[in-house]
């Protein structure tokens, strides 16, 4: 079966040599991200995130289901990642690669297990009805650093998402359409962001942020650190590879914290802009009785 080509010897040697001379292929600093772009869709809960040429779309959706029997007071929250052949022919449908398993585990640990979404708030009628929130992650283009991009997209989509308003009266659940009642945001507790370091050199002494696909193929180890702006680590994973000095890892963590704070500020700004844009005309426009026709 034809498959992906590994980088050639020339490329491997050159990237390493350049890194040792403190250069990166695209002229970035070692701790510099590629330009970050974030656009929200027309619908609530659609976020399109791009770091350079890596592009990921995340869509959040909600439906009413029955809660799990062992957790009657919790809602259901799932993140679905599927790497399709659209991103790279190396990915096949229905056959999860190692990359995909690790990516979905990381998102799970970063967003779900860290309690970013208050799942108890999703409960409607204890043991009978709850919201099921699902985020679908679609990789549109793959040029390295899927993890950070995917995590940003998931968080952005969930923060942007509005679920239909509901009320329970006398055991009867009513779900309102957006026309009847304005949809409500999710109960969001904190926003974690992933920051991935790639290590190079025999002893992993060179650390680089936001590696491109070429750089990713050459790295000897990587470490993903998830943090929120309050300085809480949600998850760290350095899954094997060349060992790296413990002190260097601590430094990486503190730089990662500043990056996570930057992301947080950026996302807040974009969300505020989006809210403003949606609110053109304001409340009075909604109340107007005559229409354009």
């Amino acid at each position: 079966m034809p498959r992906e080509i590994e980088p050639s010897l020339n490329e491997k040697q050159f990237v390493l040599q350049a890194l040792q001379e403190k250069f990166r292929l695209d002229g970035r600093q070692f701790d510099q991200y590629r330009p970050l772009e974030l656009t929200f869709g027309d619908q609530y809960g659609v976020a399109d995130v791009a770091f350079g040429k890596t592009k990921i779309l995340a869509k959040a959706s909600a439906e009413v289901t029955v809660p799990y029997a062992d957790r009657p007071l919790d809602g259901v929250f799932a993140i679905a990642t599927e790497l399709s052949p659209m991103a790279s022919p190396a990915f096949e449908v229905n056959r999860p690669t190692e990359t995909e398993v690790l990516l979905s585990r990381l998102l799970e640990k970063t967003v779900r297990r860290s309690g970013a979404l208050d799942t108890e708030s999703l409960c409607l009628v204890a043991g009978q009805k709850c919201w099921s929130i699902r985020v679908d992650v679609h990789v549109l283009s793959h040029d390295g650093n899927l993890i950070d991009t995917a995590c940003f997209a998931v968080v952005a989509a969930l923060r942007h998402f509005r679920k239909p308003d509901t009320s329970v009266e006398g055991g009867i659940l009513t779900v309102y359409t957006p026309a009847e009642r304005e949809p409500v945001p999710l109960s969001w507790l904190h926003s974690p962001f992933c920051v991935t370091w790639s290590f190079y050199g025999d002893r992993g002494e060179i650390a680089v942020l936001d590696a491109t696909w070429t750089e990713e193929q050459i790295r000897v180890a990587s470490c993903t650190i998830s943090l929120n702006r309050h300085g809480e680590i949600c998850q760290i994973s350095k899954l094997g590879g060349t060992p790296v000095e413990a002190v260097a890892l601590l430094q990486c963590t503190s730089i990662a914290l500043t990056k996570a704070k930057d992301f947080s500020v950026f996302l807040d700004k974009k969300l505020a802009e989006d809210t403003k844009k949606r609110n053109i005309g304001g409340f009075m426009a909604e109340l107007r009785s005559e229409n354009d026709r």
Partner: protein
Amino acid sequence: MATAQPLYVLPGDTIDPSLIPTHKKLPLRLGPGLRHIPPSAIVPTVAGQLVADHKKNSMWVEYNGGRYIPAPNDLVIGQIQRSAADFYFMNLTPFTSNATLPQLAFEGATKKNRPQLASGALVYARVVLANRHMDPELECVSSSTGKAEGLGPLTGGMAFDVSLGLARRLLMARSREEGKVEILELLGAEGLAFETAVGRNGKVWVGSDSAKTIILVGRALRETDDGKLDVDQQKKLAKRLIREMK
């Protein structure tokens, strides 16, 4: 020459017979993107710009993108995948079947003395055979003169990926006038010392003693490609990159 107004075609379009070049002696040659359906229909198979060369009595469709399809006499940069008894198996593009490069198709190679190339090494080669349903065959030596003529293993340096369109424009005999790419000349004129090899399969190899220079040329190529820069913009880009370097 091509018509003054560029003509764009879509797959399956009918081509106006007046556009098809005619020549007294030479037979009509069809380039990439055109298909001859007997008896006399010519149909484009890709979307792009229709170009006709009346002197050579040939026509083809210029397009940018898609995967490289080997054609005879193309210069390509391939990567050695593995070595067999008499052949090297080469990769030209990811996710395609291999091309073969006979181990004797190098300048001065004999049974006893032939280049030993490790897997992953880059080779600048010419496509000799390219048939459908067959692996393409490459060579690094001109069969008529027996000389390498610049082909052979590429040592050091860095290979950058560019779009097929840019690679083709860089390979044009007069890349500046016809291809509208001047960036390499501009950088050279600014005093950068580097050498390049352009592969039709969308790879540009850049060699230099200084890593900084290689990176700069690579960035210049990428930005020219991504931004679809015209000649004036390329001039600005060259100036800006040189300034950044200093």
